[in-house]
């Protein structure tokens, strides 16, 4: 079992895309999860539905919407290009955006569960002792939900590694630029007799996905232990 140069490039690109996607989406996911878990406001179910949209839409549709909005001719794509000189179409940055959007709902779900498991009385106690909102979040909430954030990040990373439909629709399948691991698998599947490359890449993907889910489970178990432990002391 050996990895050809195209497979190695695809693996490296997938890791870079997934890492950047996860780091970019994580702060936003924490904020969104906090709002959904703790705030009450009109239209909350609409926000919740929007967050989950990438999970239920066919990925090809998500990719096509990205192409229309963030492409060279799209409104957001033109704005990004003029203001910051950022081009997303047919670049690895576009693949990272697609991966971030597809992984976002998974991150929000994991983090929201962790926030909802935190006893609000702990936060209220800190507030009565004079801590401001940010201080409460930074010293009470954040440490308690840290494993949940990690679990969400791992899930989002795994989703980014596996993302195919939106990516290939938005940024195509350019070796070295946008050909991620799943796109490479797809391309090799189209070539008669390329089964060996396919099997290698499939095993690689399986290993990454399995590791991510196992790590995520482990972290989720830790957050449960930690929070129930603290609750008993109150």
């Amino acid at each position, binding site marked *: 079992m050996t990895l050809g140069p195209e497979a190695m490039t695809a693996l490296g690109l997938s890791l870079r895309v997934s890492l950047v996607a996860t780091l970019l989406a994580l702060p936003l996911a924490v904020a969104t999860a906090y709002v959904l878990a703790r705030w009450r406001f009109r239209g909350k179910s609409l926000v919740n539905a929007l967050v989950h949209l990438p999970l239920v839409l066919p990925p090809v549709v998500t990719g096509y919407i990205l*192409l*229309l909005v963030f*492409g*060279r*001719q799209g409104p957001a794509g033109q704005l990004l290009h003029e203001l910051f000189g950022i*081009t997303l*179409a*047919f670049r690895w940055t576009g693949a990272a955006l697609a991966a971030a959007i597809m992984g976002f709902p998974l991150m929000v779900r994991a983090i929201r569960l962790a926030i909802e498991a935190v006893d609000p009385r702990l936060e209220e106690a800190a507030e009565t002792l004079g801590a401001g909102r940010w201080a409460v979040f930074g010293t009470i909430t954040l440490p308690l939900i840290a494993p949940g954030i990690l679990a969400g990040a791992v899930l989002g990373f795994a989703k980014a590694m596996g993302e195919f439909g939106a990516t*290939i*629709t938005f940024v*195509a*399948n*350019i*070796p070295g630029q946008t*050909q991620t691991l799943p*796109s490479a698998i*797809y*391309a*090799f*599947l*189209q*070539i*008669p*007799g390329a089964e060996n490359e396919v099997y290698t890449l499939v095993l690689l993907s399986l290993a990454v996905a399995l590791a991510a889910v196992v790590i995520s489970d482990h972290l989720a178990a830790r957050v449960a232990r930690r929070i129930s432990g603290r609750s008993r002391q109150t």
Partner: protein
Amino acid sequence: MGKSLLILVAAVLLCLPLRAGAGDGLVVHAAASLKGPLDEVLARWADGNAVASYGGSAAQARQVLAGAPADIVILANPDWMDWLETRGGIIKASRRDLLGNALVMVVPVASGKTTGWPDPADLPDLPSGIAEWLGRDGRLAIGHTRSVPAGQYARHWLEGAALWPQVAQRLAETENVRAALALVALAEAPAGIVYATDARAEPRVREVFRLPSAGLPPVVYPAAVTTGAGAGADALLDWLASDAAMAVFEAAGFLRPPGTP
């Protein structure tokens, strides 16, 4: 109340007949680029019922060999038909070249003022001026050059015309030729290479150059009856190759297979 409504809806859905792939009809597994005219040809078949399932040639070939209920298979690529033939998926004697196609370079219909791409009126002749047609940072939309037949043909021609070094780093390779077409139609790419039939079916693109057939391996769609085919498959294949059917295919821009008058 809500629950009983849900149960009612579920019951109705379960009772709906599954029309597509009806048990008494024949199933044609066909390359995606045939959608449109093939549906029309099948609808006009007088001697029986047939429906088509469309997809990439690779997926179709693999599905047929894996036992998909296909009676006839039509692929965009002789390589995959060879693959099927050596594995016993088709009846060898029934195999024939059903259709041909041409490859063309297309550009968006929208003018350069709105798209930001170079205006074709100011550009040098094709194919030698191809780099200028892509502008400063445009990409040539093209099927994946290793795995998509239209991309393989295009690469073969680009290499033969010594244009490959100019465009090799300027490609937007897609998973099928229709995706490349969509990129040009949306003006995300200033130019692309697609089948003549694709260009004709998409009003937002304009053909600017037809790849000379002399520099290309023939673009051919082989068809065959599968090993597990039901009765009537041979008759259906004869119908697909008949003059009446060919008139429908030709109206959509397909060619008669290479080597026929």
